[in-house]
């Protein structure tokens, strides 16, 4: 039956077919060929065996065999496509948050299913939701949690999560009960305890909904972490309250005494702290494991997921808070696994985590929408529903403002008024509440359907209406947004200085404050946790200032290389003497000025010629690069080799299929074959042409060390190219096996420019040396590659702004000066 609707919905969605009523006549016969062309041909096949009677079947149709996984896969596909459609237009998602759109999409899909089937077969099933959809979202949030911010605001988050949620639950339950007693809802069979149970399941702010809405709003990080942290941590409270009241409902009002209540309170601590502790243990386990997995890099990321999931399941098994468990698992392991695992594994973990989390978030919202289309659950009770909505809204505001008022007396940075407004308005309920509502026991709670219905309405109301209005509200109230900060060394250094400074001041003034505690924790972590959980090699090379430096350099180097490739002068990669010269020069400059740096520097610089000023900027930049190379020499070397490796054509042997389960390689062979083929053809064409046009055959260069099977005629162009490069770049190209005539022979020089003018466009690209760098390495190679001086000041510091202009002028000048009269710079650098 499930399959029916699925096929129907798919058919209807994709083909726009409407008339499927024929199928409804026999909704119980399950096997149905999923071929859309013959939807009614139901007797064709019955899974295994049925057609196996008459000998070996060529093709059997076994729908039953694959039914469940097939459906799952199709649903995932549908959800993914839904997201694709929704994200296609950014104008819509700018106004309406994606979560709301997905719910609406769910409405439509549910409507289609309903129209086809007249029964609701797909709902958000609590088992599926809690076991297969929720864990990865929470793991992702834990893993990408900004730890410092989170723990820095831990106190406030806990207050909101624990007291706030209890307040929400109690006030809502009691008020609804009061209204019921007052006769506002007519005839309902709900007692006080049931009201409290309902209150407890709907009290909690939902992490999935909050992430979905707040991620698109970009409020300031403190506000975000308060709402978001609360939504994560209140799960412990929700689970306990729900279980306690559930038990109370089963016990019946009369048998509840002080002992039970105390037991309930104790169970809160056990559930919450037990869950968190379990998560920590699993987090440490993951960290320990990743210390030793360098031999099995390819499955390294899987450990993170499996153990994270296990922490969730274990907590569930022990009836502890599973959300807290998996949150803290992610929070505690992130630092160590990021350091322990190979870089590729880390990015895999990050990426896969996001894929999972985003995927299940999408599915959850779609299913929340689909669940609405069900006549069974729609029990309307105006009083109950409207009052619930009203009370939820009002008590959230009261709770937030009251708690913030208390907290602000103790906070260093008080939560501002508009932030409080957003916090109260951000009390979004979501799928967790719905999942809990469907878990209610109908035999004990007569009005279960009313509760589900109300929960759904609350979810829609908060996610859709509040979600849509959140962004305008944030803009209208001018809530402080998250600042997009650029990574700079000085900020990093300064923030470290601030940390140490605050600790010192607390020490001096004899206060045991926030900073003191953090410092103690850092020391403890450094001394024990890091030692145990982190690989030795990583531990040594870990320093946050240096890390930032390294990242900046990598970024520079990448843009440098990119720019170099774009312009076609990558010589600096191969030619290290350039760096050394630059470096030496810089050191000379510096050491001259160093003794009295402040006094001399400015004079010194102003005294320098404009040429040297121009030189100065690139040299700093290059020097950085060189330092970087020194610092991480090995990786850098590997990178260089890698680069070379990548851009060299592989021999035929290596073209063979290479498949390995434990290695991951992107095969680019196809392109290379194409490239070589094209190049060869071009060569032939060119030699043919030159023969025809009477151009003298290129002079052979006798000495070349590397064999050059592709071009016989390419030599000449190559040497000319090199020459022109040298003329421009003025960097010795020692690694190139040039013929003796290559550079010095003045006979070539006159040809150069005429040739350049004559070169047809299809030849302009053509450039191949004995090393035969692939075309990818030198895409869009200009005929006269401009000099490196332009490349160098890539990192646009405020100073280099003007130096760009300055660097340009002599560059142009040099271009005019060519062919190769060694420029001043050349002389300097040599």
């Amino acid at each position, binding site marked *: 039956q499930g399959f029916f609707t699925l096929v129907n919905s798919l058919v209807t969605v994709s083909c726009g077919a409407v008339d499927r009523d024929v199928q409804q006549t026999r909704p119980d016969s399950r096997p149905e060929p999923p071929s859309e062309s013959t939807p009614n041909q139901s007797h064709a096949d019955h899974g295994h065996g049925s057609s196996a009677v008459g000998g070996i079947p060529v093709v059997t149709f076994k729908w039953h065999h694959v039914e469940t996984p097939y459906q799952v896969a199709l649903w995932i596909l549908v959800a993914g496509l839904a997201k694709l459609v929704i994200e296609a237009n950014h104008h819509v998602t700018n106004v309406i948050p994606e979560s709301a759109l997905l719910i609406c999409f769910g409405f439509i899909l549910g409507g289609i299913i309903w129209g086809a089937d007249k029964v609701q077969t797909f709902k958000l099933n609590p088992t599926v939701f809690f076991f297969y959809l929720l864990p990865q979202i929470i793991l992702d949030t834990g893993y990408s949690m900004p730890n410092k911010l989170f723990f820095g605001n831990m106190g406030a988050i806990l207050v909101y999560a624990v007291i706030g949620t209890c307040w929400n639950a109690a006030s809502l339950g009691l008020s609804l009960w009061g209204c019921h007693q007052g006769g506002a809802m007519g005839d309902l069979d709900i007692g006080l305890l049931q009201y409290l149970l309902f209150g407890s399941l709907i009290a909690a702010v939902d992490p999935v909904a909050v992430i979905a809405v707040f991620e698109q709003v970009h409020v300031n990080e403190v506000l975000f972490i308060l709402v978001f942290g609360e939504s994560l941590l209140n799960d412990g409270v929700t689970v306990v309250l729900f279980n306690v009241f559930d038990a109370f409902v089963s016990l019946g009002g009369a048998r509840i005494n002080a002992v039970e209540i105390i037991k309930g309170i104790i169970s809160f601590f056990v559930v919450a702290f037990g869950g968190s502790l379990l998560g920590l243990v699993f987090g440490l386990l993951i960290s320990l494991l990743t210390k030793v997995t360098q031999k099995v890099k390819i499955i390294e990321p899987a450990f993170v997921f499996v153990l994270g999931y296990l922490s969730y399941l274990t907590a569930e098994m022990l009836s502890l808070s599973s959300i807290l468990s998996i949150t803290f698992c992610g929070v505690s392991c992130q630092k160590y696994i990021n350091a322990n695992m190979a870089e590729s594994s880390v990015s895999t973990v990050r990426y896969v985590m996001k894929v999972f989390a985003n995927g299940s978030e999408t599915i959850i919202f779609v299913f929340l929408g689909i669940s609405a289309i069900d006549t069974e659950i729609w029990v309307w009770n105006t009083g109950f529903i409207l009052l619930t909505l009203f009370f939820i809204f009002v008590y959230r505001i009261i709770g937030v403002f009251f708690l913030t008022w208390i907290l602000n007396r103790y906070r260093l940075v008080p939560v501002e008024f508009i932030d409080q407004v957003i916090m109260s308005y951000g009390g979004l309920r979501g799928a967790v509440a719905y999942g809990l509502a469907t878990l209610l026991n109908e035999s004990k709670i007569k009005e279960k359907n009313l509760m589900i219905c109300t929960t759904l309405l609350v979810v829609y109301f908060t996610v859709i209406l509040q979600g849509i209005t959140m962004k305008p509200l944030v803009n209208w109230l001018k809530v402080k947004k998250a600042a997009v900060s650029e990574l700079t060394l000085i900020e990093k250094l300064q923030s470290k200085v601030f940390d140490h400074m605050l600790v*010192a001041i607390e020490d001096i003034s004899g206060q045991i404050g926030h900073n003191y505690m953090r410092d103690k924790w850092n020391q403890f972590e450094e001394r024990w946790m890091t030692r145990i959980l982190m690989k030795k090699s990583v531990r040594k090379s870990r320093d946050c200032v240096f890390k930032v430096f390294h990242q900046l350099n990598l970024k520079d180097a990448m843009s440098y290389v990119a720019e170099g490739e774009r312009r076609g002068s990558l010589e600096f990669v191969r030619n290290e003497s350039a760096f050394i010269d630059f470096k030496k020069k810089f050191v000379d400059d510096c050491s001259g000025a160093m003794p009295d740096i402040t006094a001399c520097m400015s004079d010194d610089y102003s005294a320098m010629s404009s040429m040297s000023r121009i030189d100065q900027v690139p040299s700093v930049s290059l020097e950085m690069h060189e330092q970087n190379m020194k610092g991480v020499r090995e990786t850098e070397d590997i990178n260089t080799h890698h680069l070379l490796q990548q851009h060299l054509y592989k021999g035929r042997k290596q073209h063979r299929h290479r498949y390995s389960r434990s290695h991951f390689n992107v095969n680019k062979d196809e392109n290379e074959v194409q490239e070589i083929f094209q190049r060869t053809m071009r060569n032939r064409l060119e030699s043919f042409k030159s023969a025809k046009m009477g151009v003298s055959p290129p002079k052979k260069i006798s000495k070349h060390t590397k064999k050059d099977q592709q071009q016989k005629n390419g030599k000449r162009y190559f040497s000319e190219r090199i020459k022109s490069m040298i003329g421009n770049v003025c960097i010795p190209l020692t690694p190139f096996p040039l013929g003796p005539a290559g550079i010095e022979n003045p006979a070539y020089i006159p040809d150069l420019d005429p040739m350049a003018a004559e070169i047809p466009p299809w030849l302009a690209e053509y450039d191949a040396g004995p090393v035969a760098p692939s075309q990818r390495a030198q895409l869009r190679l200009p005929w006269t590659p401009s000099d490196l001086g332009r490349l160098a000041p890539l990192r646009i510091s405020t100073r280099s702004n003007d130096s760009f202009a300055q660097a340009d002028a002599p560059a142009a000048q040099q271009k005019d000066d060519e062919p190769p009269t060694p420029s001043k710079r050349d002389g300097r650098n040599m």
Partner: protein
Amino acid sequence: LAKSCPGQETVTLYLRGVALRGRRPRPAPPSTSPPPASTSHPIKQEDNLTETRLVSHSQITRLYSRFTSLDKGENGTLSREDFQRIPELAINPLGDRIINAFFPEGEDQVNFRGFMRILAHFRPIEDNEKKSVAVSEPLNSRTNKLLFAFRLYDLDRDDKISREELLQVLRMMVGVNISDDQLGSIADRTIQEADTNGDNSISFNEFIKVLEKVDVEQKMSIRFLH
């Protein structure tokens, strides 16, 4: 964990006033068991100053008792040795720099007023302060906080952080695994980030500019100094 001050029964103390009148003769040190009256007595004289912020009486009392407990020589002033006896400062990489910050140029003693004056840099900024019309900037203004941080680098007080000075601080801050060459290039790069006029050093203005986006008010404040 931070001890909170009972906000209501605060005696208005004018730290800024104290700070501005640093040259006034220091009042006689109160007795070691600080009764509120005697502690606040010297400061009460400035009660009539206009703009300020509240410092709870108990805070002053507490800090004063901390001051006296640090003051092993019992002469009403603290010497460098007094500070160096604080065990945690010995393991703080910037400990010595911060101790130095407490001592005005050329002096090696600091009295309670000077002590408070330094600590006042770390007071959070409150809303009512922003509105108040200040004769001169309070010690906990953004600029003054940054100036304090700047002075930690600028040893020779020439209002510039030179490469050498930066290197010294970097050396304190990073682990031993970073070589001198690497550190040198980090320093170069850091200066390059901030340096706008090309003198290869960071002036105070450049320092302010480059830390524009940093929430200094928050990062250089300690709550309990309310």
